[in-house]
């Protein structure tokens, strides 16, 4: 185990009455891509700005390579920040934009060294042909490549990315996402990547930290967060369509929905009330005992989303391939009990224990 490259330890920050960050602790290892996932207002950007030194925490410490940098100037931290809005100098060419960080005071690169670094960076990002164009003549995707280029050209100690792909169209997002992952791996420089997009989070992160209301809800590899979320709240941050959350009561050793339908036997030591979480892909369309009416069928190509009314609840089922049904058809969904997550009701909104799907 490497010692962590960056340690964020119990960091809190408020703006007036708003608690933006509350006792946030995250460790990042030397070559890790850490995704911070959360909705708007979760505190993601504040966290990033605090790491960059653009905000000063009220409490807590930030340590980089064993050195306390909590009070260091942004320039002394040697981190590179890329924003959602392509912030290029409009009156400069692409080349001049890329040279800028290398010509900053205190960096003593020779002219030939600068040219070499700029051209290497341009090659990595496939923007060599654009080097002598004025920045305003670029498309959105090209601008964001240049902005990323400006961050990597000087090989910082840490990348901080604040939703860099959000303003790009879907096709470009897909391809740049892959390029960013490969770039980070090739360079071996740790990256903290902030997003509200669950597809990006799952595909990019070595680990994901789920943040909401300024608090860390869970940190772990994508598989762990997706398959073993600590609370319904975390469970809902990942997955498309979202996880089915079904409030149930323990009646006669059966989990029973609002409509009074018993859908599953309860495990040992089960609480009187709970929330069941069932991922849409973990519901089979046949073999169950309780009928469901199909209300909506969405054929998305590789998969089909069904919206069905089942045991008085509206639930999603995700199946592979093209639909074999019509709206109004009756099916008998089957739950695989070992794939059901159970959270005692009192833990619904906060930190919870691991889901206990005991049978």
């Amino acid at each position, binding site marked *: 185990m490497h010692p962590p490259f960056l340690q964020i330890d119990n960091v809190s920050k408020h703006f007036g009455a708003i608690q933006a960050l509350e006792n946030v602790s995250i460790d990042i290892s030397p070559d890790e891509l850490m995704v911070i996932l959360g*909705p708007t207002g979760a505190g993601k950007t504040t966290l990033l700005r605090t790491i960059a030194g653009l905000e000063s925490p009220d409490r807590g410490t930030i340590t980089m390579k064993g050195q306390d940098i909590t009070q260091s100037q942004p320039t002394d931290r040697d981190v590179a920040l890329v924003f959602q809005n392509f912030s290029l100098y409009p009156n400069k060419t692409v080349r001049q934009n890329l040279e800028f960080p290398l010509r900053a005071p205190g960096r003593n690169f020779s002219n030939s060294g600068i040219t070499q670094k700029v051209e290497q960076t341009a090659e990595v990002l496939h923007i060599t042909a654009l080097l002598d164009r004025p920045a305003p003549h670029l498309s959105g995707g090209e601008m964001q490549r240049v902005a990323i280029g400006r961050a990597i050209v000087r090989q910082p100690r840490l990348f901080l990315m604040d939703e860099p792909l959000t303003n790009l*169209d*879907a*096709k470009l997002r*897909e391809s740049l996402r*892959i390029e960013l*992952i*490969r770039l980070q791996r090739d360079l071996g420089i740790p990256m903290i990547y902030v997003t*509200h997009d*669950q*597809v990006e989070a*799952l*595909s990019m992160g070595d680990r994901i930290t789920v943040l909401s209301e300024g608090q860390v809800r869970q940190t772990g590899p*994508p*598989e762990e967060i*997706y398959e073993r979320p600590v609370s319904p709240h975390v469970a*809902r941050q*990942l*997955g*498309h*369509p*979202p996880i089915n959350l079904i409030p149930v009561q323990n009646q006669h050793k059966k989990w029973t929905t609002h409509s009074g339908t018993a859908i599953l036997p309860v495990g040992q030591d089960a609480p009187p009330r709970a929330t069941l979480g069932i*991922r*849409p*892909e973990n519901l089979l369309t046949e073999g169950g005992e309780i009928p469901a009416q199909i*209300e*909506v069928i*969405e*054929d*998305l*190509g*590789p*998969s089909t*989303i069904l*919206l069905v009314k089942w045991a008085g609840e509206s639930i999603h089922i*995700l199946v*592979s*391939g*093209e639909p074999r049904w019509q*709206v109004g058809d009756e099916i008998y969904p089957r739950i695989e009990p070992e794939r059901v997550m159970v959270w005692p009701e009192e833990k619904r909104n906060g930190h919870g224990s691991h889901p206990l799907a005991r049978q």
Partner: protein
Amino acid sequence: MPFLELQDLQKTYPDGTRAVNGVDLSIGEGEFIVLLGPSGCGKTTTLRMIAGLEEPTAGRIELNNQDVTHLPPSQRDVGFVFQFYALYPHMTVWQNVAFPLQNVGLPEPEINTTINRVADALGITPLLNRHPGQLSGGDQQRVSLARAMVRTPDVYLMDEPLGTLDTEHRLELREFIRSQQLALSVTAMYVTHDQEEAMSLADRIVVMADGEIRQIGTPSEVYNTPTDLFVANFVGSPGMNLLTGKIVQADQNVVFTNDEADTHIPLSHPLEPAPAILGIRPEFIRPSTTGLQARVMLSEYQGSHRYVHLDSPLGNLIMRTEAALHFNAKETLCLQFDPEHICLFNPQTERAF
């Protein structure tokens, strides 16, 4: 018999920009048509010409047996729906929904009847006396939809109505529109750049690029048998894998290969030897013991599935697999393509063979 018909519709702006370049389209009554394409493809301009908000440079628009090409918007029976979220915060739900009806001077009793009917259909009757600020996001969207639907125009024209919503509400409202559409059979033309939304909502999708229609078809037709490379790549997320090579005769079989690959991909199409581009969707590639050798570059976990990015002698490609399968970077796999789902394109014309 077409209900809405566009004939050679064109729009050229004074600066010479050709936004729409000869669009022909026939829509039946009760059809839900989605215009899909990237920004700048002409989809919104087409919609605005149907609404009467843009004057066509040439061509003809017929709505319900009437030539409406040069009629002002108020004399066409169209309902133009913008993004769904904008409710007036100081008005109740009832007042919000009544607003477009009061605007056209409908008498009070008729307003009441209409609102009751629509509120009932959309399940917002219990909310009528509340203010928008007291509603959940999803309920607000229902109210905005109700406000759009109290009028019953010949055709609804919708310009990216879900564009500003988050993923979850987008899914909810999309399902809602679909179920209402099935129940009420409204005729609608809906513009989006989101291919998933198009797949989910449309009876037929019209794919546009560079001011022209590239393909018209059911979601399944557009997805499975794209007419050209643009459609193949634009529809699907990720798009179709496109590999450059040639069709050759090998023994008794027609196969696809190129000079670098020593593997032949069997084709079920009876085609003459020719240079070609092979298209295959990520879900129709699977690992096997024989087949095209490819090296894993990257594996993307997606929760319910996984995308594996591969490097092969035929080019880079993406395979969709179960989430539970694990692949290591640099691992070599053998891949089989489902011959039933291979598409072949002419590299010169970029159109399907």
